């Protein structure tokens, strides 16, 4: 535990933040700095690692150890850093192109391995830094610089991909809600294993308004649901809407209508090992469903980095080979006089 009390300012580097005015990335940066200040860990234990893309400039703006990698490879670099020194708190910052296109292979494998990382995926559904081509999360048919007639590709859902890759922790935040992000980031830090956090983030230049439907001030409480462990899945301006299961499918219902009362509403269990309901929740899309925010899945499982060192400890306890000289003269040797 840190003996110093930090403020978010302690985590700001002296570098000028160069994201476009109004970019959602700045809110995420603030949320991460606030989180780290409040976590009670020593500053030198934090490492922020990124790939390439707008969001990947992140480490330069943090006054922590930081590594700005190459396109798509932040997951591999972060996995190496964490495995080399599990006592570090490693934060991987990536985007929808970085993590899910060029880095897709690393993404699924770091999730599968369950390396104890906090992975923040800033999803703006577009390539920003290369100026506006479609990404693996762009909507089907979306018109972009590289799809002037609309894409003919089906997008990835990061949550579905995470669960499909055996992910144990998935949360979703949204750029305008710093308090929710801080809450999620803290839970992610306390979770052992990889914590995948998708942030719905608006790109003001190339994909402005991608999330307008769900973020519109007047209607957002009806179009978003913040899931909390052990709490009923209720949402809406008037807290009168909820989710139930009907015929193995989720359904939005109105409390007080058709005999539905609060006790009929599903209670969120993020700790449930069986991913079926979590999968249904991460896949909810507008306008039929509210988009789910909060910690959707948080299941304990052994981590990769832990496993590596437990194995080393076990072998070292019983081996006769304690140093290089032992190894060099082990096995079959002979003497020449």
């Amino acid at each position, binding site marked *: 535990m840190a003996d110093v009390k930090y403020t978010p300012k302690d985590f700001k580097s002296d570098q000028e933040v160069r994201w476009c005015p109004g970019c959602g990335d700045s809110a995420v940066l603030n949320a991460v700095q606030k989180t780290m200040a409040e976590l009670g860990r020593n*500053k*030198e234990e934090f*490492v922020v690692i990124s790939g390439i893309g707008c969001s990947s400039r992140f480490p330069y703006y943090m006054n922590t150890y930081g590594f700005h990698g*190459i396109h798509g490879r932040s997951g*591999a670099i972060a996995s*190496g850093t964490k495995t080399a020194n599990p006592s570090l708190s490693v934060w991987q910052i990536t985007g929808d192109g970085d993590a899910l296109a060029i880095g897709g292979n690393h993404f699924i494998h770091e999730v599968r391995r369950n390396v104890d990382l906090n992975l923040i995926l800033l999803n703006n559904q577009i390539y920003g830094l290369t100026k506006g081509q479609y990404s693996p999360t762009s909507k089907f048919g979306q018109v972009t610089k590289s799809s002037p007639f609309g894409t003919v590709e089906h997008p990835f859902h990061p949550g579905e991909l995470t669960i499909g890759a055996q992910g144990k922790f998935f949360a979703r935040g949204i750029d305008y809600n710093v308090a929710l992000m801080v809450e999620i980031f803290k839970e992610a830090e306390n979770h052992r294993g990889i914590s995948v956090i998708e942030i719905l983030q608006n790109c003001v230049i190339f994909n402005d308004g991608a999330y307008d439907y769900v973020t519109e001030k007047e209607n957002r409480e009806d179009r978003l649901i913040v899931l909390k462990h052990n709490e009923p899945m209720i949402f809406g301006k008037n807290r009168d809407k909820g989710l139930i299961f009907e015929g193995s499918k989720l359904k939005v219902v109105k409390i007080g209508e058709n005999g539905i009362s609060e006790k009929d509403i599903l209670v969120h269990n993020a700790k449930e090992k069986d991913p079926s309901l979590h999968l249904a929740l991460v896949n909810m899309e507008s306008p039929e469903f509210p988009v789910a925010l909060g910690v959707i899945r948080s299941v304990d499982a052994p981590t990769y980095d832990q496993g590596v060192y437990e194995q080393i400890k076990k072998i070292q306890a019983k081996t006769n*080979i304690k140093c290089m000289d032992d190894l060099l003269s082990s096995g079959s040797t002979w003497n020449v006089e």
Partner: protein
Amino acid sequence: MENLKKEVVELDEVVIRFSGDSGDGMQLTGTLFSNTSALFGNDVSTFPDYPAEIRAPQGTVGGVSGFQLHFGKKQIFTPGDYADVLVAMNPAAVKANLRWVKQGGTIIVDADSFTDKNLEKAGYSQDPLKDDKLGNYNIVEVPITNLTKQSIEDLGLDNKSVLRCKNMFALGLVYYIFSRPLEHTLNFIETKFGAKDPRVVEANKRVLQAGFNYGDNLQLLRSYLVQPADIPAGKYRSINGNIATAWGLLAAAEKSGLRLFLGSYPITPASEILQEISARKDLGAVCFQAEDEIAGICTAIGASFAGCLAATSTSGPGLSLKAEAIGLAAITELPLVIVNVQRGGPSTGLPTKTEQSDLLQALYGRHGECPVPVIAASTPSDCFYYAYEAGRIAVEHMTPVILLTDGFLANGSEPWKITKMSELPEIKPPFAQKDKPYLPYLRNAETMVREWAVPGTPGLEHRVGGLEKMAVTGTVSYVPENHQVMTFEREEKVKRIVAKVPDLKVFGNQNGGKLLVIGWGSTYGYIITAVKEMQDEGHDIAMLHFNYINPLPKNTAEILKLYKKLVVCELNLGQFANYLRIKHQQFNYLQYNKVQGQPFTVLELKEHFYKLLKEE
């Protein structure tokens, strides 16, 4: 009957090639013979030659697996050009290997395998044992399959298990011919199969003995003795290039006080390095089997940032995939060893065969101005020293280093006088001091090396990355002049590694002469054997061998200028020759090149050198 005294002929050196189907156990047979010979005190060099397919169609030429070994009472530098004895377990093995047998050499065949079906599979229209095509060889037909069956028929093993013992019959027979003791192999059988099935142990032991007795009883073969070699006293072990490489990295980690981290993806012929380091949990090594080649190197870079001695191992195609990340290690100036076990290329090429054709890729195969030190090992055992040296340079100079070995070194083995850790040079990581403000790109005035600040150290928080950085402070910088400064500094840092690179030494007349034979890396053994033999014959020929490729040793030009003719011999189309043409343009370089996936032969080298000496 006259009591015949066994005739024992003494020889200086012998080359044996074991060959059979890739499932016949020829690699094991060869290894056991090598180990026995090494224990006996011979110098030994081995080279396995096997197909890429794990079980290629049985009985076909494509499925033949060979293991060649060369042992002697003198110093042995190569696995030998041509075999004195070929053991061929089927017709395909004869067909595939005949070209590697000396005229007048002995070919021991399993006569039972020369069936019509097998002859056809091997592509023989006629039984070669019955026509005179093999007239120049001493053919020894032994019904190996039947004798194997007979000697263990009472054990109740299934037919497959019985046939698996055939290789032991051949091995026993060869042990008889070369007057070798059986103890080592009997002990091996005990440990290897003991836990499995006591019948398998018994079967293998009996068949080995049966092969030995067969030779003894029939008196159809003379037996030979190769006396122990006069090699320096000390403790020895047999080691191949891949294990030596893995151990060299482990040794560098221990010496520098760092944990070894290997991030790697399986690829022939480098996988054994990954396997060996994954087994070295006892020494605390962390081995990360990544999802691909890129992740292999990127996990290593992440680990290097975190303060490990990080390495990645691969072969040619993998080096291509790692190219971008090597640039990242170069611009972040983090220590990293990249082991490239070269094989025949391009593309998948000849994955199990040897070649030296990745040299230019290692030197230049990156975007941007991206200098990387390159060193090459020249024998299976010196892979240990050069892997260690790669680790030392990486850590002390804060740079990625490429170590080149190849399939020939990786799989070849030789006796190695075990090094003590105390004999190896110090490795001192240039860690930043805790109590001083940290400037990531402040350089040591002499070496140009920056300091290493490891996450977890209070007060040294900083950022590095792929974007160009301001000199000294390390903040992101797009200043045009700064990029030039940093490009120059990275280049200069690598150049200054030369201060600790040992001077080259000529083998032969130091003062100059008619012909200087130049080589690098794994061709060492063949070239030195050829040059030595020609020197003994009285020719004016010398040899210069390179292990440090970038930077080249300081005295390179001083030596090159002393010789009338320079010939660069390498297993590619002239990559090192071209590199020398860039670095030392004032000289004229002749070339001798081979790209067959095979090492040189001493014979072909000598023929070429004779020709060069004759031409004026």
